[in-house]
C-alpha cells in the first residue's frame, strides 16, 4: 500500500490486489521519521484510476465469438497488466494518532508519502489501544478480522443511544444483547415493546428457562398491567388527558377540580369519577368532553377499581440487586391506549427517580414516534437524563427521530440503509463525518452493525452482532411458510 494524497481528513491510499482489505478496516500509516503513526479507517474501496484503463478494457471487450486470438508473451507481462488493472484506491478517514504508544485525537499532521509504511491495524489492537472494552464488558459480536468487539457498559451509562437500520437487519437482536448484558451487571431496563418481541427473553431457543428467568417481567396492559386511579398523580393524568386524549383547556380545569374533590374524599375510582362528571355542575359541552375522555380511559382496559387486580409498578423496579427488565408489551393496543400507557409509565418512572426510589433506568423505546409525544423527545434526552433515564431509541425510520436527538446521541448502532434520505438523516449525527456513515452503512450486510460513538472511543467499528440463545420473537409471520 502506498500513501497517495490527503484532502481534508480524507486520505487516499493505493492498494494492490494481494492486499486483502475491506471497507471498515483500519490501517496504520507508520512514519518513522515523525515517530508517529496515523490511524485511518477505510470508508470506501474504489478502482484506482489507471491511465489507459479504458483503452485496455475496450480492447479486451472486442474479444468475443467473432474475434479471438492468442498472445505470444514470453515475459508474461499479462500478469503485470492484470495486477495494475486490479489495483484499488482506498478512501480513508483519519481517526487518530499513536504517539508514545498512546492514542491521541490529533489528525492535523501529514505523514511522509515516500517514507511511510502502511499496514493493517487489527481490530483487537485498536480495541486495546483505545481501551474500549473496560471493566464491564459487553460482547457485541465479531469484527471482520474475527476479533471480538466488546464495549464497556460504562459507555452506555448516562448516555443517549440510537439503534437504527432498515427492516430485518438485526436491530432488535442487538438491543436484546445489550439489555441482557445490562441485566447481568445489575441494571434496570424498561422496554417499550411495540411488537411483543422482548416477551420471551427468559426462554432459550429450545423453550427452556434460561438464566434470566425471574429477571424479565412482562407487563401486558389489560392483562396483567392495570392500575388504580389512586396510584396515579394528577399531573400524570393531566398529561394523559392533554397529550393522548387532547382535552380542551376548560374541560381540563373542571377535571382537575373533580379529581381534587375525589382525592380529598378518598374515593378516587373510575366509578366515582364517572358519577362525579355526571353530577358536576358545568356546561353540558364541558361535561360531554369530560365524558368522552372518561370513556376512553375506561375502554382502554388499563384502569381498574379492583385493588387486587392492580399492578404495583414499582414492585419490580425498586430495590433490585441483580438486574431486571420490565417489558411493557404494547402489542395489540390501539394508538391512543398506547399513548395513555406510555404517559403513565414515563410519569411513574420520573416520579420514582425524583423520589430516589430508583437509582437510574435504561429505557429502550422501539419506534418511539408511534407512542411518544413530540415534546417528550427533548424532555427525555435533556431533562430526564439528569434524573437517570438513559434512553436507547430503536427505529427503522430514522427521519422520525428529530435532528437534535441525533446531534446529542452519544452512541449510534447503525445497520444497513440503502435509501439516500435515511443515510442523509443518520449522517447528521455529530459522532462521525457524514461520508463514513453514507459509504459504510450502505454496504453493510445483514446483522452487521457500524458502531459509532463513545462505546468505541469514537473509532467507528463494523461488527457482526452475535447470536443469542433466546427466543427473539422478532421474526415476521409469513403466509407462504412450509406447512410440514
Amino acid at each position, binding site marked *: 500500500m502506498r500513501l497517495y494524497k490527503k484532502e481534508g481528513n480524507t486520505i487516499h491510499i493505493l492498494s494492490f490486489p494481494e492486499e486483502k482489505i475491506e471497507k471498515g478496516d483500519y490501517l496504520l500509516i507508520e512514519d518513522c521519521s515523525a515517530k508517529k503513526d496515523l490511524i485511518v479507517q477505510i470508508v470506501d474501496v474504489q478502482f484506482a484510476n489507471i491511465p489507459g484503463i479504458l*483503452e485496455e478494457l475496450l*480492447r479486451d471487450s472486442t474479444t468475443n465469438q467473432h474475434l479471438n486470438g492468442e498472445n505470444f508473451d514470453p*515475459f508474461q507481462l499479462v500478469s*503485470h497488466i492484470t495486477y*495494475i488493472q486490479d489495483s484499488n484506491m482506498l478512501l480513508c478517514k483519519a481517526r487518530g494518532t499513536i504517539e508514545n504508544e498512546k492514542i491521541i485525537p490529533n489528525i492535523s499532521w501529514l505523514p511522509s508519502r515516500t517514507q511511510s509504511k502502511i499496514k493493517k491495524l487489527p481490530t483487537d489492537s485498536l480495541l486495546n489501544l483505545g481501551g474500549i472494552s473496560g471493566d464491564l464488558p459487553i460482547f457485541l459480536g465479531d469484527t471482520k478480522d474475527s476479533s471480538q468487539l466488546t464495549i464497556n457498559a460504562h459507555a452506555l451509562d448516562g448516555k443517549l443511544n440510537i439503534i437504527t437500520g432498515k427492516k430485518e437487519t438485526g436491530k432488535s437482536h442487538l438491543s436484546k444483547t445489550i439489555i441482557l448484558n445490562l441485566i447481568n451487571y445489575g441494571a434496570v431496563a424498561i422496554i417499550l415493546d411495540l411488537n411483543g418481541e422482548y416477551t420471551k427473553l427468559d426462554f432459550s431457543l429450545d423453550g427452556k428457562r434460561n438464566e434470566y428467568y425471574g429477571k424479565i417481567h412482562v407487563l401486558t396492559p389489560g392483562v396483567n398491567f392495570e392500575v388504580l386511579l389512586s396510584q396515579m398523580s394528577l399531573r400524570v393524568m393531566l398529561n394523559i388527558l392533554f397529550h393522548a386524549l387532547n382535552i380542551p383547556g376548560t374541560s381540563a380545569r373542571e377535571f382537575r377540580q373533580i379529581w381534587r374533590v375525589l382525592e380529598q374524599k378518598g374515593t378516587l375510582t373510575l366509578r366515582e369519577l364517572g358519577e362525579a362528571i355526571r353530577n358536576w355542575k358545568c356546561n353540558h359541552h364541558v361535561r360531554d368532553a369530560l365524558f368522552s375522555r372518561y370513556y376512553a380511559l375506561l375502554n382502554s382496559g388499563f384502569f381498574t377499581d379492583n385493588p387486587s387486580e392492580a399492578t404495583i409498578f414499582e414492585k419490580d423496579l425498586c430495590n433490585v440487586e441483580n438486574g431486571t427488565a420490565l417489558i411493557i408489551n404494547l402489542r395489540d393496543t390501539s394508538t391512543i391506549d398506547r399513548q395513555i400507557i406510555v404517559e403513565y409509565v414515563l410519569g411513574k418512572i420520573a416520579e420514582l427517580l425524583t423520589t430516589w426510589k430508583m437509582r437510574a433506568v435504561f429505557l429502550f423505546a422501539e419506534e418511539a414516534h408511534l407512542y411518544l409525544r413530540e415534546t417528550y423527545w427533548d424532555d427525555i434526552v435533556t431533562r430526564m437524563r439528569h434524573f437517570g433515564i438513559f434512553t436507547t431509541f430503536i427505529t427503522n425510520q430514522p427521519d422520525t427521530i428529530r435532528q437534535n436527538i441525533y446531534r446529542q446521541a452519544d452512541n449510534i448502532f447503525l445497520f444497513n440503509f440503502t435509501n439516500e434520505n435515511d443515510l442523509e438523516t443518520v449522517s447528521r449525527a455529530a459522532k462521525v463525518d457524514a461520508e463514513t456513515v453514507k459509504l459504510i452503512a450502505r454496504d453493510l450486510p445483514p446483522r452487521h452493525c457500524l458502531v459509532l460513538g463513545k462505546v468505541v472511543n469514537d473509532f467507528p467499528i463494523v461488527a457482526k452482532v452475535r447470536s443469542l440463545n433466546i427466543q427473539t420473537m422478532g421474526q415476521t409471520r409469513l403466509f407462504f411458510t412450509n406447512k410440514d
Partner: protein
Amino acid sequence: MIEQLHYTTTPKYNFPLSPETLQIPQKFIELSLKTIKTPKQQTLQLPQQTLFNNCSTTKLDDEDQTQFFPNHNHYTIQSIPLNPLNEETTIVAVDVSSIKIGETNQGIICAIRGTIVWKQHKSYKYLRIGPFPLHITEENKREIYRLLRQHSLNLPNEPLHHSNLINMPTKLGNLLECWIRMKISHASQNSIILWDGSLTAGTTSSPIKTISQTLEIARNHLNATLAFSKNTYLRFLTHQLTVSKNLQPPYLLEINDLPTKTGSFSLLGKVYMTRLTRNGCCFRLDIDKELPNELRIEAVEKLLGNDLLFQSYPETLRLAHIFATFTATEVIAMQRFLVKKCGLKILNRPNIHRFLFGSFGYGPEA
C-alpha cells in the same frame, strides 16, 4: 498399373498461425533478456505525455518519402470504379508498435510488439507477438540492430547511420515488422495481405531486397499485398489528392507517371488514392506493382467484399493497429516488470518544459 486415388493433404495455408508454427525468433527473446538484465542503475521515468506516445513503425519511412515524392505536376490520374467481389478470401493484416518505456543513465528502455489479424469466415483472429522490452545504449545499439537485421532480414551487416537512440525503437520495430511480413507472405495462400504504410523501399530498415523478396514470396503464394497509408504528401497541381467530390465511392484513383526510383528509394507498389466507403476518408493505397493490373483491382474488390470497412479503412488492419498499440496500463506494467526483474528504481524526471514555462509548458492540448 492400377490407378491409385490421389489424396492430397489439406492445405495448411490461411489457417491462422499459432506462435509455435510461426517460430517466434528466439533471438528477439534472447536479445531482450540480455539487454534488460544489463542495467543495474536507476531509470528515469519520462513525463507521461512523452511516454505514452506509441510509434507506428512506418512513421520514419513516411517522413522519408517526402523526399521521394517531390511536388511536381507531372502525374496523370485515372479513376477506377470498384465493385465488391464476394468470393471468400482471407484478409491478413500486420502492424507493429514500439514505445519508449523509460531512460536509464546509459540509454533507453523500449518495447516492441507485432500483431497479425486474420479475417476468415466472418470472424477475426489475432496473434500478438511480444512485447519485447529492450535496453538500448550507445554501446549496444549497433550490436542489437545487427543481430536483429541479420536474423529478421537475413541480410549482411550494414553500418547504422544517423541513428540516435530516440529513433531506435522505430527502427527495431521495423525489423520485427519485416520479419512478420515475410512469414505471413510464406504462410498465406490466395489471401489479401494488408500492410500499414507504403510499399516504398530503400531505408536501412526496409531494404529494397527484403521488401521485393517479401512481395515476391507473397505473389508466388497467390497473395496480393496492399499497403494503406494514413498520411500522404501526394499533390496534384498543388491540390491535396485526398479531395475528390465528384466520384462515387468505392473507387481508386490510379496515379501514373510517378518516378519509380529516386536516390536510394524505390516504389515497389503501384500508387493509388482510394475511398472505399461513401462517408469514409481518402487513403493512399500501394499495391504490389508486379501484379497484373486486373489482379490489383480484383484484390481491392475482394477486400471490399470480404472485410468490414470503417471510415474507408479495412477493419482487419484497424484491429491489427489496435492490438499492437501499447496502452498506458501496459507501459506501467512493463515498468513494474523491469523493476521486479532488473531491480531498477523508477525516478520522476522533472518536466523541464513545465519547469521553465509553467502552464505554457505542456505543448499542444492533447
